């Protein structure tokens, strides 16, 4: 396994900047998720690291060795593709064996490595089938087997679960997580699914529009987002944003509601964007009231959409609470759980995960 350093990598396609200068250090045995919406540059980053695309500028180091100009076959990285990219004309056995056959490994070594990978992934019964005869989940395992069979410096995974159905995706998510932890493998995992990133990664790199917005452990991303874009992308149901003004008393007034703020970072009268995570809003007997616009009951909990003046926000409430559409209910937010952003730049001014005395973050 290996540490990986990307240093000031950029990528231009014609006049389009696919990647702003990007620097990223992945430690040995670290599982890093590259998270962002489609077209944000995360797959480009992975392809550049793999050597499938050349960066416009910048250097790539694997364990201190500069591999920027080295072809993919000599970088010793294993990749799992979103489409699985299995070789259709080879049996499962030959698919998994391919990386070793290409390296002219001895037959006995290939056979035992394939058997081990197949056992680990529970695909031994399918070894003599062709990819066409496998289900999506089985194909996914074969693709993993092909990556595992040799000892790569790191694993690159490009949305490996996005072609699976929802139930299987959850199951594979847990399995993959366990697998990579037990392998002690360095892995870069591209995904647009924030739940995958949150649950699997040691650290998450959040991307948007060709820029890396933040690179931090999942809970830091969640509780101390660098800016509004990161806050909006991570969390489900997503954070809601309200335009607010700092009152003389240091509270935040937004959409006819007043939220007591523990640490008002701005002078009275200043405009501020208030961010509310649904789980931080709770029903209260004596709080300010809001109108119930929509109740979505998920069985285990319910998401209530509320309206107060022009402002709309969501509340996550327990499953057994009776909430009627059209009624008004009182809500409260723990002052510690307010997120505040600068309305112009989107920069985070206050967040639960930030030390309030260190607002430069």
């Amino acid at each position: 396994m290996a540490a990986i350093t990307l240093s000031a990598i950029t990528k231009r396609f014609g006049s389009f900047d696919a990647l702003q200068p990007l620097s990223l250090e992945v430690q040995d045995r670290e599982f890093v998720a590259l998270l962002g919406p489609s077209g944000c540059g995360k797959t480009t980053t992975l392809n550049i690291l793999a050597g499938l695309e050349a960066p416009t500028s910048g250097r790539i180091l694997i364990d201190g060795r500069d591999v920027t100009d080295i072809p993919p076959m000599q970088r010793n990285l294993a990749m799992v593709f979103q489409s699985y990219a299995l070789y259709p004309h080879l049996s499962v056995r030959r698919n998994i064996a391919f990386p070793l056959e290409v390296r002219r490994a001895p037959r006995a070594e290939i056979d035992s490595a394939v058997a081990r990978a197949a056992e680990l992934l529970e695909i031994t019964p399918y070894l003599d089938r062709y990819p066409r005869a496998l289900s999506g989940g089985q194909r996914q395992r074969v693709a993993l087997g092909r990556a595992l069979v040799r000892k790569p410096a790191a694993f690159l995974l490009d949305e490996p679960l996005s072609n699976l159905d929802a139930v299987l995706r959850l199951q594979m998510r847990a399995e993959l997580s366990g697998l990579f932890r037990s392998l002690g493998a360095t892995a870069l995992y591209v995904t647009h699914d924030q739940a995958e990133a949150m649950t699997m990664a040691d650290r998450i790199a959040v991307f948007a529009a060709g820029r890396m917005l933040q690179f931090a452990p999942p809970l830091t991303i969640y509780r101390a987002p660098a800016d509004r874009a990161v806050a909006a992308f991570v969390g489900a149901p997503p954070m809601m944003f309200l335009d607010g003004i700092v009152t003389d008393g240091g509270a935040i007034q937004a959409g006819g509601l007043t939220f007591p703020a523990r640490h008002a970072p701005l002078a009275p009268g200043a405009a501020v964007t208030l961010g509310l995570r649904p789980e931080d809003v709770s029903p209260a007997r004596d709080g300010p009231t809001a109108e119930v616009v929509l109740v979505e009951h998920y069985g285990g909990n319910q998401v209530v959409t509320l309206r107060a003046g022009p402002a709309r926000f969501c509340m996550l409430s327990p499953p057994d609470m009776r909430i009627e559409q059209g009624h008004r209910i009182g809500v409260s937010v723990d002052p510690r759980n307010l997120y505040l952003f600068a309305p112009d730049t989107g920069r985070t001014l206050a967040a639960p995960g930030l030390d309030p005395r260190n607002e430069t973050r």
Partner: protein
Amino acid sequence: MSDRQILLLCLVPALLLLALTQFYPLAQSFYVSLHDWTLARSPVMGEFVGAQNYSRVLHDRQFTGALWFTLGLAAGSSILSVLLGFGLALLTVGENWKLRLSRTLLLLPMIIAPVAVGTVWRMMLAARIGPVNEALGALGLGTPNWLGSPGLAQVTLTVIDAWQWTPFSMIVMAAALASIPPDILAAARMDGAGRGLILRRIIVPITLPIILLVAMFRMVDALMTLDIVFTTTGGGPGFATHTLGYWIYVQGLRYFNISQAAAASWLLLALCMATAAAFLLWRRRIMSWQVRQ
């Protein structure tokens, strides 16, 4: 009346027309091939002779000569055009204006009428006044008689046929290559395979079913070659470049030996069908991976 019956009823006129224009002449020619009929002697068909015409044709030295030359030409031209077509397709696969332009230019030989192809090549290769030999002569490389010496004429015709049909092979292969998911090629690179290995272990095996299909079409088509012979060598020198098609043409429409020409036509048809069947069987054997288990 069900929808299906109405649909079948609508098909009847087309089927009748097909039967009339396709199967009736076929049946008629088979009928003729079993009788003795030489137009030069009589306008009316002679007596029933069974398989005599077939045995006479098969014992004809000119016919067997033509058979061997035709097989050689078909095999040579197919192999050449498949290999060249695959190579050119590999070189021109992709989407930018340069590649698209090269593909279009490379297609030109195919859209020229075969008769014109033959005529142009005959003029190009004329022994004393053709531009090819003038150039070779000026370089001091000698002036081979491309269409005039028996062995060389056979090779020349094979090359001309391959030249004309390589574009066909190229466009089909280009489509086959373009249909390989790029992820698979990227995966092979990540797995450590170099260009040669990717070509041998991934690209060729995946496109092999289509390569065989192209080879089959080329082979069957080349077995029926007539036009190029007609416009370049006229079957000569001697009988060196008689193809089966040309032999049939000469027997039937020059010597009016209708019944033997019909018999030879049926032999050629059998040869084409056997060739096609062989290729299809081969193709099915290597395609097990495309079948759901």
